[in-house]
Each structure stands twice: as structure tokens, then as C-alpha cells.
């Protein structure tokens, strides 16, 4: 709708708008004692907050993480020292208007790093660096609002594709999580085969008759790029075939959390019963309590000066973290 018409509509809201959004000093009722410079400063901060909110939403649209560096570069510019204030303000705005929050992504699993990356990390890391400095937007609305009819797009065209995409990564993440956080490639393929998705998956755009489905490999790659999955390929020094395993990516961990997994499993089993709940409790908790099978090995290795796991480690060999790197290392 062209701008001129927008005004017509706006006019009858004018009164409300003025009352709700004191944007210029004149509009501020009741705090007439505020000095102009304070007001000016606040306006500047408001602008930065607005820009950060817009930046966060734009990142979310493309499922790219919101990075601290990106915020500094694209939002703050020369106002870098205002990071804390602007970030806090943006969180408030996101919560108030959209019911969303920026949630920090978990740091990358150390056992998913290549030896090279570990060396780098060991050198640069000031002891315990536990922050990833990357965020995603998640909804903070009560669970009742997360059902598919609201959350998942429902219109034909892309929405169907998006819905099946969500269903697929939720399912794969559930399988990986219930398998203890790691799934071998053949086992993943077997699961996909059972779902008739070994070769092809529903395309992102089922309405486009030229490509109603997509190669499974392409969809998996997209899941990796979006941070839902991590594929680790380990080239064996001995000349065996490469061993590929699948893990939950940082976005996957945040968006498909334990509650989401439990909800998904209940849906698959057509409801909940005591036995299922017990199992669910067990598997989701066990994973929590289990002292991280490979993690401990690599965690220990991390302390070594060069970060090399050493010859006795069964995981010896070059690890490559496929694709997922392109977003993380720019």
C-alpha cells in the first residue's frame, strides 16, 4: 500500500500513537525537568536499540546467528562502548513487542573441532571461554502458542516446505539426542530410509512443480548451514572408510530443546502415558548425567599443550567439520 494511503489510516490512530510513543521531547509528558542533552542521548540509544532489533530479526529471517562482531560492525559502529546498554534495551524491546529473546548459542562442542582449531583455541583462549558470542532469536511465549497452527507457516507454497523442513530437522535432532548425542551416518540413513526420505525429501517449495522434492543431501546440507546439525567426518589414518557422525548443531540445541523433543516424541507416540514419560525422562536425563563419552577424552586432550589427542586416542585422525564452518569462521 502506498505511503499516501498509509497516512489516511494513521490519522485515526494519531492520538493513540502519540500517547504510546513519546518520541520527541515535546511528547514526553510529566518529565519536563529532563535536560535536552539527556534526551538527545536517549534518542541516540533508542535509534541503536531499534537498529539492533531490526538486525536481529533480519538475521533470524535467514537463520544466520546474530554475532557480537556483526552487532558491533553493522549496528553500533563508533558507539561500541554502548554494547551492554543497547543489547539490554534490544532484549526488552524484542520481548515487549515480539515475545522473543536473543539467546546465546552454546559454544561449539570441543570434540567437534579439528586438531588445528583446537590448537588455535588453546592458544587464544583465556582459560575458560564459555561464551560463543553468537545468539539466535527464540520465542518466549507460553507453550500453548508454539503449536504448529500458529508457529509453522500454514499457507501453500513455501509454508508447506517450511513446515516439512521443521518436521524433518526436529525428527533428526530427536533421534540424535535420544541416541546419546551422536549418530553414525549409516544409522541416520537407515532412519531416513524408513521414512522414505533416503534419496529425496519434500522440497522447500512443493508448489514449484519443477522441483516438488529435493535431494536429501541438499536438505541435510541446509540443516548444517542453518546450524541444526553438525556432520563430523573423521578420516582414518589406517585407510578404512571415513567415519561420519551426526551431531546436533548450536541452533538445533537452542530451538529444539528437551521440551521440544519430548513434545515431538509424544506426538509421534500419539499422546503420553506413564511408561513413555518414564522412558523420556530417562533418555533425556541420562544424556544429561552421562559424563559425555567422547567429550571427556577430548576435554582432557584439550589441556595438552598442542591440543593433540595423542596416539592412544581412538579418535586419532583428522577431523573435519563439514560445511558448518562457513558461518562460524568469517
Amino acid at each position: 500500500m502506498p505511503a499516501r494511503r498509509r497516512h489516511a489510516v494513521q490519522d485515526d490512530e494519531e492520538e493513540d500513537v502519540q500517547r504510546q510513543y513519546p518520541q520527541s521531547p515535546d511528547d514526553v509528558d510529566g518529565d519536563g525537568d529532563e535536560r535536552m542533552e539527556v534526551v538527545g542521548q536517549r534518542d541516540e540509544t533508542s535509534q541503536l536499540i531499534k537498529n539492533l532489533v531490526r538486525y536481529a530479526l533480519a538475521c533470524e529471517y535467514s537463520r544466520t546467528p546474530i554475532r557480537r562482531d556483526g552487532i558491533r560492525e553493522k549496528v553500533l559502529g563508533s558507539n561500541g562502548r554502548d554494547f551492554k546498554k543497547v543489547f539490554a534495551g534490544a532484549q526488552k524491546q524484542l520481548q515487549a513487542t515480539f515475545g522473543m529473546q536473543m539467546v546465546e548459542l552454546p559454544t561449539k562442542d570441543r570434540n567437534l573441532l579439528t586438531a588445528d582449531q583446537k590448537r588455535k583455541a588453546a592458544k587464544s583462549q583465556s582459560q575458560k571461554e564459555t561464551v560463543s558470542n553468537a545468539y539466535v532469536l527464540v520465542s518466549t511465549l507460553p507453550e500453548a502458542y508454539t503449536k504448529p497452527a500458529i508457529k509453522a507457516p500454514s499457507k501453500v507454497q513455501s509454508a508447506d516446505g517450511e513446515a516439512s523442513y521443521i518436521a524433518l530437522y526436529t525428527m533428526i535432532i530427536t533421534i540424535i539426542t535420544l541416541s546419546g548425542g551422536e549418530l553414525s551416518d549409516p544409522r541416520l540413513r537407515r532412519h531416513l530410509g524408513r521414512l522414505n526420505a533416503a534419496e529425496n525429501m519434500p522440497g522447500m517449495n512443493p508448489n514449484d512443480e519443477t522441483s516438488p522434492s529435493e535431494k536429501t543431501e541438499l536438505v541435510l546440507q541446509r540443516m548444517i548451514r542453518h546450524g541444526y546439525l553438525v556432520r563430523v567426518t573423521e578420516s582414518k589414518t589406517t585407510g578404512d572408510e571415513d567415519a561420519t557422525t551426526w551431531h546436533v548443531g548450536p541452533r538445533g540445541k537452542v530451538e529444539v530443546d528437551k521440551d521440544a523433543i519430548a513434545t515431538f516424541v509424544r506426538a509421534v507416540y500419539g499422546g503420553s502415558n506413564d511408561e513413555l514419560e518414564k522412558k523420556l525422562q530417562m533418555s533425556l536425563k541420562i544424556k544429561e548425567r552421562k559424563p559425555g563419552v567422547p567429550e571427556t577424552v577430548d576435554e582432557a586432550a584439550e589441556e595438552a599443550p598442542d591440543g593433540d589427542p595423542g596416539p592412544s586416542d581412538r579418535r586419532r585422525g583428522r577431523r573435519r567439520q563439514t560445511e558448518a564452518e562457513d558461518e562460524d569462521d568469517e
Partner: protein
Amino acid sequence: MDDNWEPPVPAGYSDANRAFIQAFMARGTLTFREAQKLLAAIQSAVSDDGSDDTDNTDPQSITMADFENFIRTAREAVEPLDFDIRNTRDQVRGGGERVWAFINAHSDPATQLGTSRTAEEVAYIKRLLDAMFEKHNTARLEVMAVDEGQALRESRPAGGGRASNVNGNNNDDGGQEEEGGGSAAATSRGLKHSEVLSLLSSLVAEGWLDKSRDGFYSLAPRSLMELWSWLVATYNDADTEWQQIKFCEACKEIVTYGQRCNEPNCTIRLHDICEEGFWRTRGEKKCPKCSTPWEGNHFVGERAVTSRSGFQRGRGRRARRSTAADAADAAEDVEDEEE
């Protein structure tokens, strides 16, 4: 800005409003029928007491007034953040069904698409828009759409020495240089045909482009609403009578699919969906500007091509013919207008 600053929200703003905005943003556009389903689900969630019977609100019970209420509140909430909600009727489909879109208030292709696309893709989209609104939008043939072959022909920047400046301004997209070894690093490599096809498919999927049964790509209502002012500023020249983008005499919206005056130099256009109401208010079917009888058989949009007798005679021949026509049009191909 002190610590107890609270962002202002419209009066009575609730989680139902927030859920509506989240869902609207995820979808990009909403029709009333889609909104009925969405709002019914939201209303069920509001009254969700944890019991199992949740889907208890009938979508049919959601009225246009309910929907407009949510829209009004949402606009009020997002306007300070430079977002807006606009609506228009679909020129082509659904009998002119009204479509609402969640948009950026100040938008151009780069800001709208820049975050989710590579620099090469953004540059391609700009070339595609040029193809739609310049190359394939002439007084003789006002197509304002491109077929697949024409879309593929834009995959690389126009040849020769001009290639380098098309994309010189946005090379900040790391990690896209896998096709190294090109002669000049500054030269935009364009997109491979396979990349163009998958980009087009995702633009269709996200509701930015429409793809017609005859295989033409045109701007979907979402793009027309989002890019309205950018399109007009970019392709129209205030000093000339002829405009690349013309507006419906009845509803004043952009016409990319509709009818044109039989007089080739006249700028009067009408949507098919607006025609009936428009003529009903007038005595005779004559162009309101030049009084040429309005026959309704001169078209804007893909029918400018498909209504011609030659079109049905085989796609191969058509492709060759339009190649020749393009070559003529492209002779005065306009340079990239972004600074």
C-alpha cells in the same frame, strides 16, 4: 536511557498479539482466510487451560473486524521499529484476494534481501528487476515478467568492461569465492544457471516472485508492497510523460498484470480485477484520457506475449524469437542505477 526504561506497547497488548506478529513475520504475507486459521489457533491458545481439547475455536468465527483489530495493534507496535503492514489485492490470482504483508518501511532490494542472500545473489536480483521493468517492459511489449530463459540470460553481469562495477560495492560476503582463479578478482562472476534456478525457486517459495503456468516470473504482491517506493523511484522518471511503472486508473496501485489503452503511447492502465467496477461507474468503455475505445485486448503482463498468435507455436521458436526481440531492446540496456 535508564535501566527501568520499558519499551512502549499499544494499550492492551498481550501474548496473543505477540504470537500474531511472530506468525505473520514467519509467513511474510497473510490472506484473510489464512488469518482466520491463525487467529483461531491463537484464540484457542489464549483459552488453553492445559487440557487436551485445545482446537476449539472455529476459524469461520473469526471476523474481518477481529483480523483488522490484530492488524491495527500489530502496526502500532512495529511502526516505531520501521516495520509496517500493508495490503493490496492480488492482480492475478484468487479473484483479486486481498493480501497483507509484513514489510520494512524503507526498503530496497539490498536491504531487504541482503542479509539472507549473498552479494552475488543480490546483484542478480537487481539485474532481474532491471530485466522485468526495463528490458521486457517497452511501449511495444509491456511484459513486466521474464520467462526462464530470459531469467537465465541475466545470470551474469552484462558483458564486456562494465562487468566490474555492477557488484563492486558489496563484496563483503565472505566465503563465496570458491570459484577462484577468475581473471580479475574485482569482477562479479555472476551466478551459475543452477544457482539462478535455485534462487528463483526460493524467491517463489518465500512469496517474493510468482511463477505462472506459462512459466513467467513476475513480482508477487509481497514484493510490490515491500519495494513499492523503491521501484517507482528507480524506474520512473518524474520529468517524462512515459513511465516505466504505471498505475491502475481505478485503484491507483501498480499494474504488472492487466490491460492497457489501445493507443500505444497512452499511459492508462487497468487491472482485470478492477475493470468491472470501473466501467460500471462510466457510461462508455473509452479511455478516460485519450478517449480511444477500450477493447480490453491489449495487455500488460505475460499476456502481452502469450496472447500473440505466435506464442502457441512451440516454445523453441518462441525462445529464439524473443531472443531477437531482447537483443533489440537490450541495445539501449540501461546501466546499473545504484551508486
